[in-house]
């Protein structure tokens, strides 16, 4: 009787699991598109984009995917779909504004290569699974904006997991001790009666598997699962990005076009997107997401842009540093012209960083006092040319500190922990402090000091800024 019930329950659980997984597979594309707030655009509205997609899918021998746009200033793009017949290419409004035809073709070719290589199937399913895995943490962070509560929950669940692990170790030690002390009695019990044998194995198995499962599950559900998922996704996606870059070049025959587009997009990625973190690995470049806490740090979903650009440069005949710098400057300018969060669209392109009181209104790229803000090394003459093996690959100086810096104006400035004036103050910065610019998040500028302290300055802080 008991056995039949157990089997029934098991069967029901199994069927339900398969059903959920199947539903998730079927709905994955739609779920991802909804998560990222992408909406379909007609051919008439976005003729250039559509034509790029049509032409390049002809060149790739793929059916033309659907085209979606995300209304975000942050330039980025991704592809979704379980197979090439049901794929979609998604770009942000910012990407369309930032890139010229050449860059757009490079980026679209990259995304189509993801579709052609069937990367999108894995990525789409992964995004959907991650979105589900992140639900508990998301629910927690949404219900409770107090970071202390979240940290407390994570700490408690972590403690439970540690206790579980330790208790298993303890039990195993006890078993070993028992075997050693009463070896004959235990052996007799285990060996002589079948019942004893089964009981022994079941007991040990349950202790080892169910103990930590029950005790550790809160930690796993809250933190471990999504993080493992993202790590796996990141590892997979990092390799596939290189492949998609290479395949894109097969389509466009223009490595420089894609490389410069990547530089531009990398330099312009600053306005944090309102994106679920579960979808981060889908994108062309790693999207900048609002900082939430330590539990979200340290999982890169993409290879460093420098590496990708260096590889692309080696495919062609190298890229001149002037072109790279021009692309970076274009990206940074684009980022700083980001419309303010909640501001009207009319502000677009009119607003330098510090203009709350009319100060620095005409500050622009390259107009300020030139201050070499801790430049590590000068860029090589032509990247991509073979270098002597003793020299390490030269990084392309993407770090925003080289591209652009911010200097605190006449008053001292306050560095907040989060883009929120109510958050903790990390540091007070004296007049003239030079900061590396990392991004623009709503009404805040995300900066890093030379000591490596990252934080947020209010946009109304009087600062001057420039590149190089």
């Amino acid at each position, binding site marked *: 009787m008991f056995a039949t019930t157990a089997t029934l329950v098991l069967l029901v659980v199994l069927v339900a699991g398969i059903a959920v997984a199947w539903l998730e597979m079927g709905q994955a594309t739609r779920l991802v598109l909804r998560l990222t707030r992408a909406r379909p655009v007609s051919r008439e509205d976005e003729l250039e984009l559509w034509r790029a997609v049509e032409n390049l899918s002809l*060149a790739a*021998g793929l059916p033309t995917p659907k085209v979606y746009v995300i209304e975000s200033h942050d330039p980025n793009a991704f592809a979704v779909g379980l197979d090439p017949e049901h794929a979609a290419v998604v770009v942000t409004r910012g990407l369309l504004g930032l890139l010229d035809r050449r860059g757009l073709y490079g980026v679209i070719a990259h995304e189509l290569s993801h579709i052609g290589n069937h990367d999108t199937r894995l990525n789409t399913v992964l995004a959907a699974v991650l979105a589900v895995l992140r639900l508990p943490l998301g629910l927690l962070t949404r219900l409770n904006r107090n970071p202390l509560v979240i940290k407390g929950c994570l700490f408690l669940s972590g403690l439970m997991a540690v206790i579980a692990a330790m208790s298993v170790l303890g039990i195993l030690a006890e078993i070993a001790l028992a075997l050693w002390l009463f070896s004959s009695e235990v052996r007799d019990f285990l060996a002589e009666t079948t019942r004893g044998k089964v009981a022994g194995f079941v007991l040990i198995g349950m202790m080892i598997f169910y103990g930590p499962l029950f005790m550790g599950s809160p930690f796993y559900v809250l933190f471990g699962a999504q993080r493992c998922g993202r790590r796996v996704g990141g590892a997979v996606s990092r390799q596939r990005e290189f492949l998609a870059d290479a395949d894109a070049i097969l389509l466009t*025959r*223009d490595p420089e076009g894609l490389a410069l587009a990547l530089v531009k997009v990398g330099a312009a990625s600053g306005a944090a997107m309102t994106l679920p973190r579960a979808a981060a690995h889908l994108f062309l470049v790693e999207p900048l997401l609002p900082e939430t806490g330590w539990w979200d740090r340290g999982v890169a979903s993409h290879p460093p842009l420098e590496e990708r650009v260096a590889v692309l440069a080696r495919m062609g005949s190298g890229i001149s540093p002037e072109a790279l710098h021009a692309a970076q400057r274009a990206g940074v300018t684009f980022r700083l012209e980001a419309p303010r969060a909640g501001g009207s669209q009319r502000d677009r392109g009119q607003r330098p960083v510090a203009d709350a009181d009319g100060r620095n209104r005409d500050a622009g790229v390259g107009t300020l006092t030139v201050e070499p803000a801790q430049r590590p090394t000068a860029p090589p003459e032509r990247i991509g040319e073979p270098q002597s093996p003793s020299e390490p690959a030269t990084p392309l100086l993407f770090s925003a500190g080289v591209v652009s810096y911010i200097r605190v104006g006449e008053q001292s400035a306050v560095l907040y922990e989060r883009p929120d004036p109510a958050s903790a103050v990390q540091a007070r910065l004296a007049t003239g402090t030079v900061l590396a610019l990392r991004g623009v998040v709503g009404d805040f500028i995300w900066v890093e000091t030379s000591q490596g302290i990252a934080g947020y300055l209010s946009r109304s802080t009087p600062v001057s800024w420039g590149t190089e």
Partner: protein
Amino acid sequence: MTAADLIIGLILMLLVVAVLAGVATYNRLVRSRNRVREAWSGIDVQLRRRASLVPNLVESVRGYAAHERGVFEEVARARGALQQAGGATAAASANNALSQALGHLFAVAENYPTLRASENLTALQRELSDVEEKIAFARQFYNRTVLDYNTRIETFPGVLVASNLGFAAAEFFETGDEGRAEVTVSFASAQAPGPRPQDVPPSGPWKGPC
């Protein structure tokens, strides 16, 4: 089990393996050829679209310059040749001839400012340039599949099967140099020396590139 049995068994096994390998090679060749056909249909659709744009274009110019008979006839001839073209090479040269004829037609249209400014003509021109771009991109995919297929029937496992089972080399779709500077890739020129694909005469009524 004697030594003879063992040898017979080995030979039988080798035979089975050889047959399986032959079947696999044949299937691969068929798949590859079908890919070439499918890729060709990508170009074919665009060529047809281009040909179907021509009458409207001619009509809109004829309204202004009815006396330029020679140009209209040239265009009509080129269009007819494109529609009848058999084989990728023939289609490519017919398409180039049409490009040339259309160049003459637009040169005529240039002489009539009102025609040049007409909404109808600019729309047609836009569509035509879209089609031409698409032909160039589709050509890229087609030539890649042809290269893949031709390599397959000329290299080792394929070459044993190909000629016996009627796998002929496919033709590349090559554009002339005139007015096609925007085309960036030419797989044909990157190909290793070998029988030039255009040397293969199209046999009988043309059904596809192979």
